[in-house]
């Protein structure tokens, strides 16, 4: 009898340890790349860090399933490697031998992914839950595309430039004409002055080309 009880106890304790094993149906593999993320400021992975991980996961489960009080002991970890990968399973606080469903665990992790990442100073790429793809950040879409703003500025400058260049000679011409009509009114009697403005004549190039004409 005693032997049977002992065997049953051994079996039950063995069963109790079996929930966490590699490729568990309700477990997830976690991979951390601390040195890649932090370089020189990387911390060493030890028992304390593992405790923090289990506590963070318990926090995530608590946040997701309101009411159920998950504890650190509900998170069971096994198969740790030097790479810093390990498997974990979550037992339910109501039924210590039963495992929480994989889907529920995934939802809980997705909800609190950011908090879990920041607890370890890591990102989605360096703290990986194998099987849980990170949700992609939607690209920022501002209301006015920035390129239209730059386009507006450039085109505005070019358009203003065109208008200025086209209109300014017309304005100058008008001003000149006004001045000329004023001068004409003043000097109707004096003809000698009209002849003096040789600057308004046309430079006759044929005279300077005289040399060429004779070069037959």
């Amino acid at each position, binding site marked *: 009898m005693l032997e049977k009880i002992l065997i049953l106890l051994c079996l039950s304790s063995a069963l109790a340890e079996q929930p966490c094993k590699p490729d568990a149906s309700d477990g997830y593999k976690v991979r951390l790349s601390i040195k890649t993320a932090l370089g020189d400021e990387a911390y060493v992975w030890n028992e304390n860090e593992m405790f923090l991980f289990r506590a963070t996961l318990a926090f995530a489960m608590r946040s997701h399933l309101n009411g159920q009080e998950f504890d650190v002991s509900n998170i069971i970890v096994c198969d740790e490697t030097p790479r810093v990968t390990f498997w974990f399973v979550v037992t339910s606080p109501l039924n210590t031998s039963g495992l929480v469903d994989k889907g529920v665990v995934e939802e809980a992790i997705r909800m609190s992914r950011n908090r879990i990442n920041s607890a370890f100073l890591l990102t989605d790429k360096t703290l990986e839950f194998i099987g849980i793809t990170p949700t992609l950040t939607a690209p920022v879409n501002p209301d006015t595309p920035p390129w239209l703003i730059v386009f507006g500025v450039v085109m505005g400058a070019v358009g203003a430039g*065109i208008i200025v260049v086209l209109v300014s000679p017309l304005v100058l011409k008008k001003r000149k004409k006004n001045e000329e009509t004023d001068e004409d009114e003043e000097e109707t009697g004096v003809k000698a002055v009209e002849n003096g403005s040789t600057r308004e004549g046309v430079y*006759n*190039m044929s005279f300077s080309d005289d040399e060429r004409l004779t070069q037959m």
Partner: protein
Amino acid sequence: MGKTGDSGVEERPKWDNKIQYLLTCIGFAVGLGNIWRFPYLCQIYGGGAFLIPYLIALVFEGLPLLYLELAIGQRLRMGSIGVWKSISPLLGGVGIASMIVSFLVSIFYNTIIAWVLWYFFHSFQNPLPWSQCPLNDNHTGYDVECEKSTSVNYFWYRQTLNITPDIETSGSLQWWLVICLASAWCVVYICFIKGIESMGKAVYVTATFPYLVLTIFLVRALTLPGATDGLVYLFTPDWEILKNPQVWLDAATQIFFSLSVAFGGLIAFSSYNSERNNCERDAVLVGVINSATSLYASISIFSILGFKATNAYNSCREDNILDLTNHFELSDQNMTLENYYQWYDYLNSTFPDEVASLPLKSCNLQTFLDQSASGTGLAFIVFTEAVMEMPGSQVWAILFFIMLLSLGLSSMFGNIEGVLTPMHDLKIVPKWIPNEVLTAIICLASFLMSLIFTLGSGNYWVEVFNGYVGSVPLLIIAFFEIIGVIYVYGMKNFSEDIYFMTGSRPNIYWKACWMVISPIMLLAVLIAYVGLQAQKHPTYPTWNPDYELFPQTQVKDYPDWVFAIILLLCIVPVISIPVVALYELICCKIQRSSARAEPSPYCNDGFVVETQEQNNQRF
């Protein structure tokens, strides 16, 4: 100085100073081809060895043609049509051909500037829009087309061009490209409003800025890892390649198209010079600077490409490292780039089966360096990818695209000049239309015609125009130019003109080139070029997301109607040469036969030509 249009007499505009003229010619010659065609040719034709056929082509083909155009423009002081009509009325068609080619080239060239503007406007964003793939409709993953190719390819082919799978599917007008094209034409217009007065000031910036940016890029690239690999790869000479005739053909065509001769623009620019200007020195200067710029640009570009290849090589190895580390559960960062190969050998010898089962990529620096590209692929895909990996990418992207903008604009000035000045010579424009309005009409007409290139299939059409308008007609025009000046006008007359302008007659090198070497080279290049093109049915690469081997481009044949258009594009510009010659012959015979009835002193052909010249030079 300027035009005294009020008094009814039009004086020829003049350059403010010699520097303006030189910068304009250099800007016209130095264009996008120096940046994205020459480095590619250098790379695929064995680096340093390519310089030999290139320099030979420059000395025997490029410089003589350049000198010829500058001299003839400066002497006869007219645009291309007027110049050829002066030499002989039978050659008037050469000028018309130049004008048509300039017009067609300016249409598609400004489309490239519109694309550069688009990228320029987008360079002010953080992060750069071509660095990320957009999400698909239900936000579960990235867009499929972007996943299969890269985000840079996706941004170019989908978000910029919105390209259709082939040239037959036209698609619709892409509104964003239309407004970029409109802004490109507005920028060209504002630089050209006052003719060479405004353009001469614009070239101070557009011709010098590219050199500044190239220097900045060179200095920056030399501080990045991998730059020297790129340079070594570029310049390692492969002497065997010189036995391949294709290399010589490509060198000759590259020099020819790079110097922008036969467009009529150079003739127009030099016609605004004073008569006694040493155009021999100008021609040598422009030619040498053009080639030196090509070389300098390829050094800059290849340092950046070397950096990019090194980056790709490192990330390839890092992916492998990650795979191996994860599979063998090694400690993080135990395997690094430095000890990768030792680890790999150890793991392969101890666990060969497991290593073979992993999806490891073979990483070879040479393969990444071999990924060459030319043309728009270099600027908008390869270089934008390289810029993404440099710290401060926005600044480098902005600088790069402003440089491309300056290069394109300064070449556009020459093209537009090659259209406007002959229009003045033809005297078909009534005098009461001011120049500004004429320029505006030309820009508007060109803009409307270039809307074809904003369709979904626009990129394919640009390739058609680029390959066929800017090649064979130019060779034919240049050949007729040389024959016309040396044999119809006469080498003696031309030597006298040069003596008048520069003070010394052309030496034996110039004479030998003009009379024998350059025409023969041009003819050989023309025949070889046409022969090679005619050997196979022309094909083109297409971007087809439904292709099995996507993201590779699918090569398709041009359909028959496109082929007909290609033939038209080659023939229409040059058809004016024989047509005008025939017209003049028939007209002249009619004149002679009717004039024989009444002999008059005005019927002497030589006298007619001279009075035309005198009239034009008096004003």
